[in-house]
């Protein structure tokens, strides 16, 4: 593989452009994905922030859910932020009763866990394995990780506030998920971390 991996951004709805910009800054070639055939030839995929019920609805309507699950099962590296984290969770709490996810990470995620928009917040976040100090976490009607299985590595917990100690970033194999939105901050270290993971998986 060339040193510039191709990373898709699921473009059904959400902050697709911000992820594409962050991926380009992290030396990946970003490509929007809305159709099953666009999943072929990808080295990695980002599921952006957005409304998880809408994304799930459209993924089912346009025949993307099963192809996405198949690619995850094959080991495709996938990073999900916020709604993307919900899409990668094996189990969802406080979702719609019929809400489906792609799954892949052995975790239970609680949707809108911190509350409504008035409770959306910014907070520094220590992210295991990233150099250069804490990340600036932007949490918008964000989920948190309620519990994880044995194979899941917890990368970040909230340091302070009413939800101190809650898990907000995890990794299982080639799958990465954050409750917060690094794509909104101009700090592209999480995307660089993911692109490194994509490069390593392609070797």
């Amino acid at each position, binding site marked *: 593989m060339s040193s510039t991996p191709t990373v898709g951004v699921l473009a059904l709805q959400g902050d697709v452009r911000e992820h594409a910009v962050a991926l380009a800054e992290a030396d990946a070639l970003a490509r929007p994905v809305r159709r099953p055939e666009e999943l072929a030839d990808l080295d990695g995929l980002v599921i952006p922030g*957005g409304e998880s019920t809408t994304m799930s609805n459209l993924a089912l309507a346009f025949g993307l859910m099963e192809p996405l699950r198949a690619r995850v099962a094959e080991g495709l590296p996938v990073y999900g932020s916020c709604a993307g984290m919900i899409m990668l969770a094996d189990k969802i709490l406080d979702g719609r009763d019929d809400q489906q996810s792609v799954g892949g990470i052995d975790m239970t995620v609680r949707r809108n866990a911190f509350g409504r*928009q008035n409770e959306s917040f910014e907070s520094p976040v220590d992210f295991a394995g990233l150099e250069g100090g804490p990340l*600036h976490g932007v949490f918008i009607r964000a989920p948190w990780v309620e519990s994880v299985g044995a194979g899941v590595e917890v990368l970040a917990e909230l340091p302070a506030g009413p939800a101190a100690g809650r898990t907000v970033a995890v990794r299982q194999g080639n799958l990465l998920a954050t409750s917060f939105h690094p794509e*909104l901050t101009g700090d592209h270290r999480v995307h660089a971390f993911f692109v490194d993971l994509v490069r390593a998986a392609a070797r």
Partner: protein
Amino acid sequence: MSTTSPATPSHGEGDQPQVGTARVKRGMAEQLKGGVIMDVVTPEQARIAEDAGAVAVMALERVPADIRKDGGVARMSDPDMIDGIINAVSIPVMAKSRIGHFVEAQVLQALGVDYIDESEVLTPADEVNHSDKWAFTTPFVCGATNLGEALRRIAEGAAMIRSKGEAGTGNVVEAVRHMRQIRADIRRLTTLDENELFVAAKNLQAPYELVKEVATLGKLPVVLFSAGGVATPADAALMMQLGAEGVFVGSGIFKSGDPAKRAAAVVKATTFFDDPDVIAKVSRGLGEAMVGINCDTLPETERYANRGW
């Protein structure tokens, strides 16, 4: 708002979460992009909208078409109705306050709505001033017919802009006019040199700093949706192709023959706005569209877009 750079926050008090920042307000709208926000007047309608894939609902007492028909003063919705809709769905809930009625906005914030629309569809409470939107934790969306108006609202604290169109008409012509105007104003700014931006700010009647930011970015510093007149999947796709980042649909859905089906079709056409095959497919068998009003027969006094300044 934090003034420390993201890479070097100190531990201690800086670790406390901060709510109501410009970033979480504007960031919330970024999450709605590519989506459809639907006017609803009951919890049942809210559930239909969520089932259809709406990214948010706008809780209203009457849809704009009925406000037009019934006349009288249109105000903020009943708190019980807003509560009912908040409890019915898991997606974000928006609600409208009258222009300049900052107490209605305070009530909506207290009710826990996710976004406040300071809206020309309701009867203005102040014919000079809009609300100071910086004073709120809840973010605001405001309407605009041109770039100067959009930037004045952003200067007042709006975290999202929608082109106004002409609500309750089912006629997309004014939405097109306003979206084209805003986009053309932005394009023009990007062609000016540094010296010319000062006069551009004067002519736009907008703060120089925001004018300069738009000239540099080539876009608004906040998300831009379309509103006012979308009635069909093709209308929604048209607004997206004209540069909208998402679509508000008011009377167009629940004043049509088959709201559930039309709502789902508008959502799909918004995602695949550049794919005529998908738009054609979802446009079949939707039943009656809302009847609609010709905007050129609408008296000036009944044009909501003229409210706000």
